[in-house]
């Protein structure tokens, strides 16, 4: 039997084949990475590490880009057969981001799964923190960034708290019990509770 993962130079390497969901995410990130940093958070973190459940959206934190960069990104996403739920007009889409409203992208002729594109600024302290403390992960040559595992677990347990979130957190606690660090739990719990009293 082969273990599900190893930690190599602080990169989490998951021993499995890519799913169509991973390929959807990979294709989106291939375009995004040319223009911006990013962080995958929430349900996909649990799913890409083995939680067996369905999902409709992939939550993606992206720093608020300048307008020109965003418009170029938007047009390239369209060329790569993604469409935006809200509008075909990149300048209009940018107005949503300025208002801190998430926008969504799916593959052409599909609704789900979709990328929930979440603009992050310094004012969103927790998301800004996550974005700047990524955990690197690799699955069959697909290299990407997710939130720190301890942060993800605590956020799901303390802030979100639905049955689905508790189950996702349980999966991460069990799956990564060998590598989770108590000092990180302490640090992140203080941070999260300071924002969510």
């Amino acid at each position, binding site marked *: *039997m*082969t*273990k*599900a*993962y190893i930690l190599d130079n602080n990169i989490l390497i998951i*021993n*499995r*084949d890519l*799913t*169509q*969901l991973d390929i959807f995410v990979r294709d989106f990130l291939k375009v995004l990475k040319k223009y911006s940093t990013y962080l995958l958070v929430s349900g996909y973190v649990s*799913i890409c590490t*083995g*939680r*067996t*459940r*369905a999902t*409709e959206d992939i939550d993606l934190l992206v720093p608020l880009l300048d307008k020109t960069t965003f418009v170029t990104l938007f047009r390239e996403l369209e060329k790569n057969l993604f*469409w935006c*739920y*809200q509008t*075909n007009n990149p300048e209009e889409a940018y107005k949503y981001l300025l208002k801190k409203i998430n926008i*969504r992208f799916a593959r*052409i*002729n*599909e*609704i*789900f*799964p979709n990328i929930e594109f979440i603009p992050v600024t310094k004012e969103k302290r927790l998301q800004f923190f996550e974005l700047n403390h990524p955990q690197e992960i690799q699955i069959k040559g697909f290299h990407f960034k997710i939130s720190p595992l301890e942060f993800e677990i605590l956020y799901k347990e303390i802030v979100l708290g639905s*049955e689905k979130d*508790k*189950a996702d957190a*349980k*999966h991460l606690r*069990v*799956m990564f019990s060998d590598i989770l660090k108590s000092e990180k739990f302490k640090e992140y719990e203080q941070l999260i509770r300071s924002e969510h009293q």
Partner: protein
Amino acid sequence: MKNLTSLEFVEFYSEKIKEDNTLFKQQKMLIESQMKSSSSFFLNKLGKKNFKENARKYLREMGLI
């Protein structure tokens, strides 16, 4: 045999998959089956010709945009 709660099942399954990566095959099948069903359902419902327009109308009705 004790019936597992959903959270106990998650714990049980995560312990198994952690030690045996062949279980990822089941996960892949479930995820891809869901994606395929969703894709066929919405393509049939909304049609290929005006998919975006129809999809936006549907998403507005559902309160998703």
